[in-house]
């Protein structure tokens, strides 16, 4: 339970970090919070020859909220984002999901960007990046590129990142005004890896459902967005049967069984959590629309 030997690099800038990555190539691994990587090293599931520790790199710890996005740097700890009130106001789904990420002590050290780059199908934040149609910013010695979430995740623990690339930040896109969101997951014990989890975003407009989307934790290899609007479009939220997307959900997930839950149980959980999160997200959307129309005063 001790890591194999490695050479430790402590770059102070992004340029220095990607310089090291260019030299060591596939023998190198980036260390940020280490809450997923260090267990893997301790168990010797991986033994990279070089560790590029970016904790001293300047300029990577900022949360920036704009009118359209929430951008976080690669050293923003889960806890920092969870408690960031401006980010919560702009994109409540961030905090709704983050409180499910492991335990508070792990969130003090682990980074949200690292969790996304790690691309664990049981990770909450990859599913959030998918639902927000976010963007990953990667830098290498050759330059910077932006990777849309649909092109980033390739499989369980696999991404389209090159060995010479460093993720310096990700951008979560904010939802259209009046969109409600919800996140729920079920684990054997609170804080454990979820057997299944669902993120939902619903927009109610003019009294009817205009848009409804889901993304999943632990029941797909690759986090992606499932558009379920067709199951509810034009219906009033109070009258909707939120289980109407069950067939769409069943067709989109591919759960595996393990000692914690069978594939069939995970599929059942995903369907039920979809129903619950859609209803909760729709209720929030209705409340937001009410608030918006109240603050605008009587309609013209």
């Amino acid at each position: 339970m001790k890591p194999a030997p490695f050479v430790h690099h402590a770059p102070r800038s992004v340029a220095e970090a990607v310089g090291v990555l260019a030299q060591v190539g596939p023998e190198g691994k980036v260390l940020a919070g280490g809450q997923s990587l260090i267990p893997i090293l301790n168990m010797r599931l991986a033994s990279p020859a070089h560790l590029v520790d970016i904790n001293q790199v300047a300029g990577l710890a900022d949360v920036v909220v704009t009118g359209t996005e929430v951008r976080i740097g690669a050293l923003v700890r889960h806890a920092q984002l969870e408690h960031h009130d401006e980010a919560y106001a702009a994109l409540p789904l961030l905090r709704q999901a983050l409180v499910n990420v492991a335990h508070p002590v792990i969130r003090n050290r682990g980074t949200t960007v690292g969790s996304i780059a790690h691309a664990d199908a049981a990770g909450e934040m990859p599913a959030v990046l998918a639902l927000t149609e976010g963007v990953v910013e990667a830098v290498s010695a050759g330059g910077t590129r932006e990777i849309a979430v649909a092109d980033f995740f390739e499989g369980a623990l696999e991404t389209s990142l090159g060995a010479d690339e460093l993720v310096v930040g990700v951008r979560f896109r904010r939802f259209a005004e009046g969109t409600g969101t919800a996140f729920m997951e079920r684990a054997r014990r609170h804080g454990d890896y979820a057997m299944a989890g669902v993120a939902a975003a619903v927009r109610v407009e003019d009294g009817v459902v205009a848009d409804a989307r889901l993304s999943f934790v632990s029941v797909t290899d690759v986090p992606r967005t499932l558009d379920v609007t067709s199951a509810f479009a034009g219906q009033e939220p109070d009258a909707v049967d939120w289980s109407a997307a069950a067939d769409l959900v069943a067709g989109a997930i591919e759960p595996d069984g393990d000692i914690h839950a069978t594939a069939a149980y995970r599929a059942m959980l995903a369907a039920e959590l979809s129903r619950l999160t859609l209803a909760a997200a729709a209720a929030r959307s209705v409340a937001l629309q009410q608030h918006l129309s109240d603050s605008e005063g009587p309609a013209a």
Partner: protein
Amino acid sequence: MTEPIADSATEELLDLTVVVNGVPRHAKAPARRLLSDFLRHDLRLTGTHVGCEHGVCGACTVLVDGQPMRSCLMFAVTAQAHEVTTVEGLGAIDSMGPVQQAFIECHGLQCGFCTPGFLTTITAYLEDHPHPTADEAREAISGNLCRCTGYQNIVKSVLRAAELRAERAGTTT
């Protein structure tokens, strides 16, 4: 011919300095030295206990710049940039910290293996949440495993520690 596996004879040793309980402490250790092992083996501060070594049990929790973190999921080389507080920094036998005192009063430990991780975690928690409910106390310790107490007395200890903190604050102001 295969590559020889690097061992302590060939592995480069780094000069590491980590501030622990307010005192800069030096030792030579390889880059792969976990903070937990650095504290115990190199600095001989054996109050920090090592259970699972993959972040699950919480026994090795220390405070890093006041925030509880797993010392088994951090390298000593990375910890050099921070101030570390271990259970030895929470109080002494004749001047217990409020959480330590509460664990004694409420029988919050039996074998004591998990206790250092609980003490550090709860100390930091009460800084931010000085008046927790029983449910909040239970949530606060959800990342720490104890196989003796069944947690009932640990929850009581959290609540008692909150009282002791308030009492001590009252007597010093």
